[in-house]
């Protein structure tokens, strides 16, 4: 990932809003959200409203890919809707390129591209028609934008189906069209709400390659939500983790992962041999050890460099080590660490209500 500015030494994770600019240009704030709050009105009069966003604030720098992560119902789409002028927040303010979203929504709309979580294409039109109509809403004619439309269709692997009705598209094709439509007017700031949902690995890789290319060549800034933690880890310069409408962590993927305490070494020890815990814990870098039967989990700062020391120490004491696995921290663990509940896999909960408790199962998550 080529960062325009050289990375400063990684500071410790800061709770929110203050993390150093990483991929982006520090002095150019593109998105500035301050204490956003959104309470949806109750369905029935007298009922209690839903607090969807509860004091969210952050800044996104030019040229940065900024990830917004959180479980279903955390408030991601609501935040995007506020930032893109589609929803007036209950309180708080937001500026896009210095323009207030509440005061000058139309100026903001001119600056941004938006890909909705939900499909918004017109089924009765072809893919190309959808793109040209969208371009027309920005005042662009097909003469001005036709070449770009063809480029985008090719990039999204839709060149051969561009003139078919959208109602004949597969789910992934619709998603790719949605991405193309969101970029048809060449925005410099893109909001992507779960852009790669339902795309095959090839489609995901292709899309991200294109986004990176635009970022590097044209300084595109991206604000995205995703449920694919690996995707966020690889792509995002910075990540904000949101849960129950609050940002609970913000930093580079590395900062976030470091915050859970580094790597985990899993050692399997021959049955019946002595317990090596006392030998290993004084080794440099080891922060915690726990034993489950014949396997030992060693928390440490750098797993690879600890392996030879552990093996040697054990061998000298006559303890046989059968295998060693180094587990690098994932955002999954970050999530578990921050919220006390595992990141629920997609599909486990069919709807977006925030009824996830700490109880429903961090299975198999190394802790």
């Amino acid at each position, binding site marked *: 990932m080529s960062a325009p500015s050289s990375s400063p030494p990684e500071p410790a994770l800061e709770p929110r809003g203050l993390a150093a600019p990483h991929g982006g240009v520090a002095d150019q704030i593109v998105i500035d959200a301050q204490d956003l709050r959104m309470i949806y*009105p109750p369905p029935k009069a007298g009922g209690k409203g839903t607090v969807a966003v509860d004091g969210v604030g952050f800044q996104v720098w030019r040229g940065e890919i900024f990830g917004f992560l959180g479980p279903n119902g955390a408030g991601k*789409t609501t935040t995007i809707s506020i930032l893109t002028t589609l929803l007036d927040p209950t309180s708080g303010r937001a500026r896009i390129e210095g323009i207030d979203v509440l005061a000058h929504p139309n100026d903001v709309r001119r600056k941004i591209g938006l890909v909705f*979580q939900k499909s*918004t294409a017109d089924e009765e039109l072809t893919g190309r028609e959808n793109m040209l109509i969208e371009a*027309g809403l920005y005042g662009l004619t097909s003469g001005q934008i036709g070449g770009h439309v063809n480029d985008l269709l090719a990039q999204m692997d839709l060149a051969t189906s561009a003139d078919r009705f959208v109602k004949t598209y597969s789910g992934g094709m619709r998603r790719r069209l949605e991405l193309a439509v969101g970029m048809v007017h060449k925005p410099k700031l893109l909001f992507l709400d779960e852009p790669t*949902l*339902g795309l095959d690995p090839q489609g995901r890789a292709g899309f991200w390659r294109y986004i990176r290319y635009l970022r590097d060549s044209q300084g595109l800034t991206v604000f995205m939500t995703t449920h694919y933690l690996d995707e966020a880890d690889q792509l995002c310069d910075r990540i904000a983790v949101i849960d129950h409408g609050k940002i609970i962590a913000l930093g580079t993927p590395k900062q976030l992962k470091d915050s859970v305490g580094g790597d985990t070494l899993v050692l399997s020890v021959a049955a019946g041999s002595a317990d090596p815990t006392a030998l290993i814990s004084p080794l440099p870098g080891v922060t915690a050890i726990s034993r489950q039967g014949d396997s030992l989990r060693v928390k440490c700062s750098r797993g690879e460099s600890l392996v030879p020391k552990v093996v040697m120490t054990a061998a000298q004491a006559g303890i046989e080590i059968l295998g060693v696995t180094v587990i690098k921290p994932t955002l999954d663990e970050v999530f578990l660490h921050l919220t006390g509940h595992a990141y629920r896999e997609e599909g486990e909960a069919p709807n*977006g209500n925030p009824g996830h408790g700490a109880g429903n199962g961090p299975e198999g998550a190394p802790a």
Partner: protein
Amino acid sequence: MMLPAFSLIRREYIRWIRAPTWVISGLLSPILYLILFGQAFDLGKLLPPGTPAGVLASALSGAPTYFSYFAVGMVAFASVTAAMFSGTGIIFDKQLGILQRILSTPISRRSVFLSSLIFRGMLTLIPAFLVVGFALLLAYVPGVAGLQVGANVTALDAAQFLGAALILSVAFTSLFLSFGFAVQRIESYFGVVTILQLPILLTSNAMYPVNIMPTWLQYLVGFNPISLAVNVMRMSLFGTNGYTYSVGIYLLGLLAWAVVFVLLALLLASRALRSHVGPVGGALSDAIAT
């Protein structure tokens, strides 16, 4: 540079032209009205034989035959009936998230409404013109009643006729569009339309002369925008005898209705489009899972 509103009109046009069943049913029903209702229901036949021609003409405010009288009413009837579907598109656009997409672009909220008004308004004029053309043609079919127009119809008369048709269409397209903006479900929309349909159409002079109605009804009928438009149209084709006011007054009255309906629609549309707490994203189950 292209006007964003034109892009929306183009979209509506493409959709419309691709839905031939809609086109056919929209165009066929006014013609059926003309043939079945218009031919069967001849008030003139109720007069005893030997009644002087002037009696019927004066009852019909100058129209030479009942069919001629009725055909002009049907012009208004056809365009108002067509206008009743104007608000459906916007409801589907809301439900499918297409409106969300449109609202995320810099097109002004007023343009969203105006593009619908222009396109839908044009659509309601098609059956109106079709009725005129078809009724005129019927006059040449032997044994069938047709629209008979006086020889002294001037260009100004024709312009008045068209003007009245146009203003009527703008008024009712706006009214029904505003319901489309205001409600979220197609059922609610047709609920409103069903309640309004008969009162709007039957408290007008589109089908029968006002003088055969009770006085209280005559008042209602006099204010109905359909009656005002039909008065202008009939006066343009059959002469101004037997009308209380001049063409200009009726046109002004009609215009006043149009202004009220357009303002109402603008208000409801901008309210509905301002902060649309609609299906912005929704749960994962709503997403494109296949």
